[in-house]
């Protein structure tokens, strides 16, 4: 080996990792460190004054603020509405499609399943915001004109941070993930040996028993990944609340993420020190639950 070859082998990996690490450090690692530091200061963005160290002052203030707790609870409520549906429906659908024998038909089903996943986030929100429209949306049209369940006066008000806004967002998110999560489960089902289920059937196991004792345990790893990932994304939702609910403090969508954004970019002199503390508390609570979920799933093995 010549001198040049040795050099490349030493420097090579770093050369290749450099672009990724550069972006990652500047736009992910540094911001998190900076936010952690800001949360210990009285930094106000628009005041133009330097930040002063205030210790845990912001944290004490945030924890004594009812908006912090209601914000966490609202995010939790949304997660409770969203998480079961986004696991159970795709699981059911995947089990049904897994039994389709026709190759072409199964392939067609899979393509349709993934179409919503190809629609970028904001375009999903915009589409459903239009569908939930009080007067011109198809959902209220169906409830009022077709089903006759409501009249034009008392039709449900889905948007704007009413109590119905969180379930409305949950339905939308379940729709968005329906196909994609089914594909996850289909991959897991494909890995279960056919002999195993056939043997159990010959032994006279009912479909329900088969599902409970053979299929479900083998899907557990995939389910764990989905639950943990979706729990994390559900607790930290923000775009949906901005588009569906706005920044009204009484709104059902005024979660900890909106509370943080409101303080950082909307109110007064942009108290970003306080906002950073809100963000850190939210993140720590969320990650605590994630760690608990991981532990819960691991301990059963």
């Amino acid at each position, binding site marked *: 080996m010549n001198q040049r070859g040795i050099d*490349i*082998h030493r420097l*090579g*990996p*770093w050369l*290749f*990792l450099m*672009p*990724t*690490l550069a*972006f*990652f450090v*500047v*736009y*992910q*690692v*540094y*911001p*998190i460190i*900076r*936010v952690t530091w800001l949360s210990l200061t009285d930094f106000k*963005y628009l005041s133009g004054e330097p930040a002063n160290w205030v210790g845990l002052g912001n944290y004490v203030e945030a924890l004594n603020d009812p908006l912090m707790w209601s914000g966490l609870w609202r995010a939790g409520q949304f997660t409770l509405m969203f998480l079961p549906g986004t696991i159970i429906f795709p699981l059911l*659908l995947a089990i049904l499609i897994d039994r*389709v024998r026709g190759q072409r038909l199964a392939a067609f*089903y899979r393509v*349709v399943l993934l179409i919503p996943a190809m*629609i*970028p*986030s*904001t*375009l999903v929100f*915009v*589409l*459903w915001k*239009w*569908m939930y429209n009080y*007067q*011109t*949306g*198809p959902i209220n*049209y*169906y409830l009022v004109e077709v089903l006759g369940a409501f009249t034009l006066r008392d039709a449900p008000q889905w948007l704007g941070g009413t109590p119905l806004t969180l379930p409305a967002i949950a339905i939308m998110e379940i*729709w968005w993930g*329906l196909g994609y999560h089914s*594909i*996850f489960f289909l*991959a897991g089902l494909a890995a279960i040996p056919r002999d195993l289920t056939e043997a159990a059937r010959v032994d006279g196991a009912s479909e329900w028993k088969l599902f409970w004792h053979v299929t479900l345990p083998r899907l557990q790893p995939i389910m764990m990944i989905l639950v943990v990932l979706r729990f*994390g994304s559900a607790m*930290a939702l*923000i775009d949906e609340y*901005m*588009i569906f609910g706005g920044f009204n403090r009484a709104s059902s969508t005024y979660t900890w*993420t909106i509370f*943080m*954004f409101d303080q950082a*970019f909307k109110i007064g002199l942009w108290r*970003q020190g306080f906002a*950073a503390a809100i*963000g850190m508390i939210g*993140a720590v609570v969320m990650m605590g639950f994630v760690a608990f979920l991981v532990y819960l799933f691991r301990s059963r093995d």
Partner: protein
Amino acid sequence: MTAIPTQTKSASRRKTVLRHVTINIFLLIILLPLAWVGVLSIKSLPDSMRGNLWPRRFDFSHYAYVFDKIDTLPANLFNSIYVTGATVLITSVCAILAAYALVHMKSRSAPFVVTLLLASLYFPTRVVAIITIYEIQDYLDLINSTSGLILPYITLNLAISVLIMRSVFQLVPNDLIAAAEIDGAGTWRTLWVVGLPLAKNGLVVILIVNFVTAWGEYLLCSTLTNDQSVRTVPVVLAAVQGGLGQWAWPRIAAVYVIVVTPGIIAFTFAQKLFFRGLMEGALKA
């Protein structure tokens, strides 16, 4: 065994029919919202004020109208294409290089980098970091700049892209890489000629994932820009209150169809590679 009782035969056929009916109801639920917005874009104005699917009168003029009368639309479309194109290109190049280095180039720090990338997936970075990203962009004089959006966009999916490419590269045998290098191919050539062709399914996955994220990004774009003309189409659509004039329902629906169709068509063509890539990389990463 030849004489299966007719009763169980018809029972199992009934089951099969029921299964396909249930599947198709689900598929209908998936497709109906898209069908509705598609039809909305060719409804006449009076018909668009009702939420039903089929109008009494069609009007196909809305597509021409939006290009004619919404003066920022060409700029918004250009912004979307430009920001998304640059983000997808740069993220993919970064992810390929980094993943290749993590798998096929011996580096003692590889486990540390992988842990860091994995950890970032569990922290709500996107939400919490926005405070500082605004500050960075302000410092770089990139507030209200379309090009400025590209930088934070790249990091949105960088970690997951590297991890997906990493698990795809892990399927490429080490011997193959070593053989190419012994034959005198440099690291670049080995990656380009041997590594990348074998990892093309994973590449399709990260291209699609990054496209979808950048094309529809909302939080950063709405926070870091102020003027409608520097924003991307989806963010403009999110701010619109449907109603009259240039923002009449069928017209914004036409804009919607224009921005949502390219992605769906591209996916339909790439779906075979995408599924293979998903099985090889994404589900393991």
